């Protein structure tokens, strides 16, 4: 039994790792840490919650449904018929200033932009400006890849084809004069979508790139003529198109339509007064029991109005505080068994 000190080749390495003796931190959630920690977290959460709640409350929101499914509503005639270029208008009154910046959304209900087939029905290469995909769109666009005369549709697919095509103009009537409220359509889509993800083919004029293709079946104008007023807002980088192409997560959604241009009378937002929205009613939603609405909203640092976050923070913050009190009682009863 003479213990030899000579290192045998078989002798296991005596390292902390192999012997499972790595120095280890063994955190112990003791009452001394947990209770103050919970109180702190709880108070912080309550603080954030209050801030969120107050902020959310301060956000003004004006929602106007214009589906027109009830007879009395202004757009009922448009919704009933299949008349094209139907026009209707909505009136509303602001008694106080609608604090700016004001955002103009349109909202759809029971509209499933998140259908799988629907979502796949586009060709990102085409939308990236790759001309080879103009002539042969991806099969995922089917049945909107070719029209009846076998000409390729650009932009192809269900999403593009079903692009929202109601248009709105907003007028402010004050002292008998009617003013057009200037709407800004720039920067309503993601910056990266506008600048990188979507690209027009580098062909001038843009129209030539679309030779041999047809516009989507439901579109009134081809892609290169979407915005007559601004040549840089045409083709695939049209802001409205980009907004539409970013699919909504849930069947009831809103999308940004315009911002109220903060200039002149509207620097501080929408002043009090009577307003009229003239709607070019083109988009049918009654067939699938959908609804359309217009939403005016201003935003804060947390985005649009959302009471959920504030309430969640308040509830969980107070939960933490209550729990710390409960724990305090429990530990007081057991005389802090691990604090000895």
């Amino acid at each position: 039994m003479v213990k030899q000190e000579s290192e045998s080749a078989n002798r296991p390495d005596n390292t902390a790792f192999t012997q499972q003796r790595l120095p280890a931190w063994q955190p112990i959630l003791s009452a001394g840490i947990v209770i103050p920690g919970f109180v702190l977290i709880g108070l912080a959460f309550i603080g954030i919650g209050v801030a969120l709640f107050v902020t959310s409350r301060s956000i003004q929101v004006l929602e106007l449904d214009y589906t027109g499914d009830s007879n009395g509503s202004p757009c009922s005639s448009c919704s009933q018929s299949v008349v094209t270029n139907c026009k209707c208008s909505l009136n509303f009154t602001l008694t106080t200033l609608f604090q700016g910046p004001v955002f103009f959304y349109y909202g759809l209900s029971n509209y499933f932009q998140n259908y799988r087939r629907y979502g796949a029905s586009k060709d990102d290469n085409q939308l990236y400006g790759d001309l080879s995909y103009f002539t042969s769109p991806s099969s995922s666009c089917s049945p909107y890849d070719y029209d009846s005369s076998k000409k390729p549709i650009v932009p192809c697919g269900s999403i593009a084809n079903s692009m929202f095509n109601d248009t709105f103009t907003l007028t402010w009537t004050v002292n008998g004069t009617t003013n057009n409220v200037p709407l800004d359509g720039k920067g309503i889509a993601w910056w990266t979508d506008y600048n990188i993800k979507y690209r027009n083919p580098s062909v001038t004029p843009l129209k030539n790139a679309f030779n041999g293709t047809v516009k989507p079946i439901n579109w009134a104008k081809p892609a290169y003529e979407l915005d007559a007023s601004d040549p840089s807002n045409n083709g695939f980088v049209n802001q409205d198109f980009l907004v539409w192409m970013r699919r909504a997560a849930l069947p009831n959604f809103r999308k940004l339509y315009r911002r109220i241009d903060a200039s002149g009378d509207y620097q501080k937002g929408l002043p009090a007064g009577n307003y009229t929205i003239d709607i070019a009613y083109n988009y049918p939603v009654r067939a699938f029991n959908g609804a359309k609405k217009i939403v005016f909203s201003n935003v804060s640092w947390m985005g649009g109005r959302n009471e959920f976050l504030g309430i969640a923070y308040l509830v969980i913050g107070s939960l933490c505080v209550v729990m710390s009190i409960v724990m305090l009682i429990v530990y007081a009863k057991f005389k802090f068994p691990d604090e000895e």
Partner: protein
Amino acid sequence: LSSSIENHRTLGSRTIYVGHRPCPANEVFIPPKFCDNRIVSSKYTVWNFLPKNLFEQFRRIANFYFLIIFLVQVIVDTPTSPVTSGLPLFFVITVTAIKQGYEDWLRHKADNEVNKYRVTVLEDGRRIQKESEKIKVGDVLEVEEDETFPCDLILLQSSRDDGTCFVTTASLDGESNHKTHYTVPDTERDVESLNATIECEQPQPDLYKSLGPENLLLKGATLKNTQSICGKSIIAFFTGTILKMGKTILSKALVCTTLKYVWQSKPGQDEPWYNEKTLKEKETNLYLNMFTDFLSFMVLFNFIIPVSMYVTVEMQKFLGSFFISWDKDFFDSEIEEGALVNTSDLNEELGQVEYVFTDKTGTLTQNNMEFIECCIDGHQYKYRDASSEVDGFCVTDGPMNTVQQKAGREREELFLRALCLCHTVQVKEGFIASSPDEIALVQGAMRYGFTFLGLESKTMKILNRTNDVEMYELLHVLNFDPVRRRMSVIVRSISGETLLFCKGADSSIFPRVKQEEVEKIRMHVERNATDGYRTLCVAYKHLTAEEYDQVDSGLREARLALQDREEKLMAVYNQVETGMNLIGATAVEDRLQEEAAETMEALQGAGIKVWVLTGDKMETAKSTCYACRLFKRNTELLELTVRTLESPGKRREDRLHDLLLEYHKKTVQDAPPAKTRVASQDYGFIVDGATLSMVLNSSSENNLHDYKDLFLQICQNCTSVLCCRMAPLQKAQIVKMVKNSKGSPITLSIGDGANDVSMILEAHVGIGIKGKEGRQAVRNSDYAIPKLKHLKKLLLGHGHLYYVRIAHLVQYFFYKNLCFILPQFLYQFFCGCSQQPLYDAAYLTMYNICFTSMPILAYSLFEQHISIEMLLENATLYRQIGKNAMLRWGPFLYWTLLGVFHGLVFFFGVWFLFSNPALQDNGQAFGNWSYGTIVFTILVFTVTLKLALDTRHWTWINHFVIWGSLAFYVFFSFFWGGVIWPFLRQQRLYFVFANMLSSVSAWLVIIVLILLSLLPEILYVVLRKPRGPYARQKLVQSSAGGIQSPRSSARPLLMRTFSDESNTVS
């Protein structure tokens, strides 16, 4: 050779022509067909590797399932690309194929080493170097010292003058002794021109009758280890979980498909104008569509059973087993080896052992024999230091002898001569023998003045007390065998006297000697046996010339017999070994292994039942049990042996019946209910081989099942069970019986010799001790350790940790995939059940592979919820994980609820947030991929932090992988969303993650939902605190006193077996 055993089943004997010389012309020459000498243990060749291996792999149900899912994805238009399941599957299959290919390459290499081994063949008078695989039957080989035999051989010529050679069969049967083999008598000296034929028996599978090549058994052993043995409890849970998950998938897919069609039946919902179907879709049959939808949902939810779970579990087992072989506590400086892990599939079973079956000799005891005392004609002789008496031979009084007495000098010398002659010891740099007992006896005789000098050409030389050399001609050796339990030699002294010396177990000697001599000796023998010594009785007999001639011819005839050789020999042996004179008895101590008692005590403290299965006699085994603290002072022993069955006026069967009923009543019916076990009586149960076979093979009329059940119930209610006089197969029978009993407990067998192999193979976990009896047990074991004492750390330390780790691993995997897929499922209600994935394909694929796999792997490798020292100190901690405690309904429910809760929180938290998707301060709205990414971010952080809360042993590796995984997720998301990937058809995630981070609301919702998810967990951890590990340790420490006290009271008994002084001073 094994292959030849298979191939030549023709009856009768066969003829081999030595040196391939043609037979005499008058015989008809039929060229015999023999197989070659190649050994093939490899499974694949280069050509069949791919198809065969793939076939083998896809035979596994899991792989097959993933293959089907992959095929569905390829064929049907499914929400996710085939890559998401194809890539992991490909990875798993490739890794496994490489691993198996490598293992097979090693086998090829080992085969080649044997097959290409150079051997010298004598052919036509010349020495030719040949490869071992090219040896043909009939070749004449030359084998040098220390070489292994490349095939079965017949010894024709030896370099030794006496025509003998010594062969060790350690690799065959574990016996390290040197066996003597003799050349075939009457062969010509000139082998080169030998012309002979050999009539031999057909090959037999019995190892002990023919000598096979070394590799025969090695091959079997290697093959055993390549079988996939899997941990029972984990696998059961594993399959159970997967089945549950599978059912979840099926039911979810069914629910979704049904909902989809119910929902679609409403007007306008099936095909709104904005989402028209393609022509193909319109044309396909409704039911086919339904089926396709169902498959699509399956594919979508199939991520709940990730391929990576298998990979992670396999990795954990494989890597985790290194900690056993690396453990320096298992290193034995004597044999310069540490523990060996033959299979890593059973790591966690080590934490679930309920029954330990241990061998005695070599396992509990050292198999290192020491001559303690002898008894001649009823007088006890104990060896003391040579200084005490001139002749070094002192007499002490046994307890029964009142007067100091010595046997006559003549008897003393006869006894010592018997010890010197009756053995098979060889002298070669010390003594070499088949059993250590023999060496101990020869050494004992040496101490008393009689030295065995060696055997030379059938002459045994002895140096006697007066330093004269005595010569004896060795006429016959009647070898030891376990049935006779004795051996004899017949020698002729110089004076021409023919003597037979016989030594053997008391039970086999006493009936063969004069009865009046027995009584004097019996007491000594029994006392020695209770002291834990191995006893042998020595007898002799004079043979007259006629008697000897008769014996001689009988033996020769029997040895040359081709049929029933064993039986014939046995008959002659039994005939000779009768009417002998008993001279005395010897006592040899078989020392306990280091810390054997402490180890056994720890095992019992851990709630493990220890059964000793030994071939030894009851008294010896019983004393070892006492010494090992398996039986304690207050243990009531229940005996079911041949001795207790013998009762006047009763048939043994009836007596057996009565005893079984009586014991059953005592241990099972009268036992207090399990809860109040504090004061219950300890029972020890002793059974012997003969009785056991009566119990197991009792004829059917005696309601066989009753006996077996009764027996099993008695055994299970005893703290320790001792089975003595066991044949190797009976050991396995016992193990099998317990293994298959109610509740199918996890069994562990530990042994060191070839006779333990059967039980090592039979038990769930087989442990081999790297002892002196060869490597047989080690090769067939799942784990091999150098010493018995290492079993404690292996079970209580490693086993406990492995179990906790892997149980947590499996459940955590289940949980994290449940809360991964649940939002995916819920999303179907909000997307018209259209199989729209919530998460991007990259996230779906990477979730289990990259984002959440490393922390749990690190956890499952390094977690020590209780430190190893603490586990070893408090054996009772082992009971807490017994009976698969962590994988039962309670914990499973907890994890399920947690997973469901988290899934709901993730999905609906974000759902509420998305009631207004304008979440940025520039008024822009978020889309569906933002939704999924927010949910996914919360998910990854929550499941990782949940693991962080569970981790109680934070090494730098845990820190690294936990924080690293989270950082990697963030980094990956930026990277994945930051580039337009040319190979992707859709750039779904382009800048989604970055945009998400630019929204304060997204940050706030992520934080609050993570906290909300973890709140119950934190609360649980905090409130559990008083019952947590520390309190538990305190509790155990206070009760440890109760464990220690009996140990201290047992000190005297331990001292007696451990210290040398107490053995010499009586």
